[in-house]
């Protein structure tokens, strides 16, 4: 029994070490910071998305909403608050948490009592729903969005612009990735993880076991939402602006799906490995055939779902079931 726990901790250590490696590389070789950000961004996205998808088998097609909310939250902080810039970032994160939690709570309380199918339908419209609220009722900058570059320069000076969009954005992404790793690990080994396993298999059975399904589904939904908002917040720091047309793009949900499904849903190493692979693939496609990316990724999702649904880690575990590798890979 003890050895099983140790094996799982190895994967946790490996995941954290990977992120640490990226941090070290970036610090030593600043020219790589852009690429490292790119990779860790997708690792974080995959992990954060998988916290909900992988552990409940529910798909939130409107996941990008949380990224957008995080972006807006951070923008609000820089627009409405003048003080220490680091405090602004902290405030932005607080607002991200609040915005994401409110939306997740409303959608979750309505949708998570329903079956996966109805929840998916509700969330398909979610993205457009919130986007059209912003554009339709002309709040939060409406269709033109919010640009904070100007605010930052006038309040803090242009050195801060660089500092925020490079160092702070990257740091936030690293922190989110690490937090996502920690949460995913916790869900795999803890009592909560057990409950979610039961809920996934058969909700009625889970209830006979004494598990309250809505409570657990809502919990992971909110955590996933908040982490997604943090990713969006880091993106705002990077881009210095948020526009509805781009922020609410369904492409992010598709990307998150690719990473989670290809890596292996419900695992720790899956989104990690797939995040790295995905970043590489996307970079490659951007150079040789931009404009066709979404086409390729959509095809990958369909292909994975039909041919390879368990993903990389899932496949490896199945192939080596019962062996040491099976225990190590989580």
């Amino acid at each position, binding site marked *: 029994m003890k050895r099983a726990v140790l094996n799982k901790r190895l994967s946790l250590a490996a995941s954290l070490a990977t992120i640490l490696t990226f941090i070290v590389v970036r610090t030593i070789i600043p020219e790589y910071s852009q690429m490292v950000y790119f990779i860790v961004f997708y690792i974080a996205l995959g992990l954060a998305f998988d916290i909900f998808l992988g552990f409940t088998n529910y798909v939130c097609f409107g996941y990008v909403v949380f990224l957008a909310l995080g972006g807006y939250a951070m923008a609000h902080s820089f627009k409405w608050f003048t003080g220490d810039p680091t405090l602004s970032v902290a405030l932005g994160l607080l607002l991200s948490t609040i915005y994401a939690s409110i939306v997740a709570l409303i959608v979750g309380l*309505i949708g998570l009592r329903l079956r996966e199918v*109805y929840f998916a339908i*509700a969330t398909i419209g979610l993205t457009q729903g919130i986007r059209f609220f912003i554009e*339709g009722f002309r709040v939060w900058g409406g269709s033109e969005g919010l640009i904070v570059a100007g605010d930052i320069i006038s309040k803090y000076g242009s050195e801060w612009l660089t500092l925020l969009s490079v160092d702070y954005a990257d740091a936030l992404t690293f922190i989110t990735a690490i937090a996502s790793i920690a949460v995913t690990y916790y869900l795999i080994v803890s009592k909560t993880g057990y409950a979610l396993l039961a809920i996934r298999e058969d909700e009625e059975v889970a209830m006979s076991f004494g598990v309250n399904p809505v409570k657990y589904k809502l919990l992971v939904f909110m955590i996933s939402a908040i982490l997604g908002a943090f990713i969006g917040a880091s993106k705002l720091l990077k881009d210095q602006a948020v526009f509805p047309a781009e922020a609410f793009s369904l492409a992010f949900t598709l990307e998150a799906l690719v990473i989670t*499904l290809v890596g292996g*849903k419900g695992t720790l190493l899956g989104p990690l490995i797939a995040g790295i692979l995905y970043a590489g693939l996307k970079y490659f496609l951007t150079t040789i055939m931009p404009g066709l990316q979404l086409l390729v990724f*959509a095809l990958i999702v369909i292909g994975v779902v039909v041919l390879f649904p368990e993903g990389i880690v899932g496949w490896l575990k199945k192939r080596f079931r019962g062996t040491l590798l099976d225990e190590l890979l989580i």
Partner: protein
Amino acid sequence: MEYSYVLISAISGVMIGLLYALVGLSLTFIFGVLQFVNSAHGHLMMVGAYIAFWLFVLYGWPPLVSLIIASLLGLAFGAALYALVVRKLMGLPALYSLSAAFALGIFIQELAKVLWGPSYRGFLYDMGSIKIFDYVVPATRVWGSIISALLVFLVYYYLYKTKSGRAVRSIIQNPEGSVLSGVDIYKFYLLALAVGMALNVASGCLLTLYVSSGINPYMGGIYTDLAFMVAVTGGLGAPEGALMAGLIYGLIENMIPTVLSGVQNISLYPATRFVMFVILLFVLLVRPRGIMGR
């Protein structure tokens, strides 16, 4: 409001409502039999609209003729989709088929963009107009509603008056029971997806009889939203509800912008779509199984 204005609003509401009924019907029909959520619905309608456009612009064929081509293409597509994708996903958790449909929608959308470009297309097909009271209605709309009504009626006739249709209904209501009664469920899965897709693409073609401009790769989204609204309100998997729900939405659709135009400082199109989303959430909150659902 003038009496005849209300009447003409109602009539145009019914006319578009019949199309919406068809839209919701094709979605709910596929879901009812296969438990497959076709989130590519609107994008397939987009394809239907493009078919109408290209056949008109290249060969001068009116949408009424393109309808047949669109239906056949939809039929073939549905069959292929079943054989290659949906069949493999049937025993798995819902998330796989949901993801596949989602990805399919994006794929179709992006493919359309690559093949036909992002710009807005349109064509002018004039069949003259018909006068109802003091108002002039384009004949194309009248034809659109007649054909929509016809197709909806055909589906209902099939489901309720034919032996094969009865089998389909039993599959919708009780899949395990119907297998035990000897129904070749796989044959019907194939049939349902093929027919559902045929109706799906056809409704996009019919759409051009109402609105023949603004055809672009990204037009599908709003119709997916609409299809779900009608299907969920009528009852997902309950074809009987689609007609009622479609008509309801047809009638209120005109009303939403009218009500909203009183509100200051808003952009009408996005605000309308937001209201549509809220209605969907509301239905899911209050009565998720819809009007006619079990």
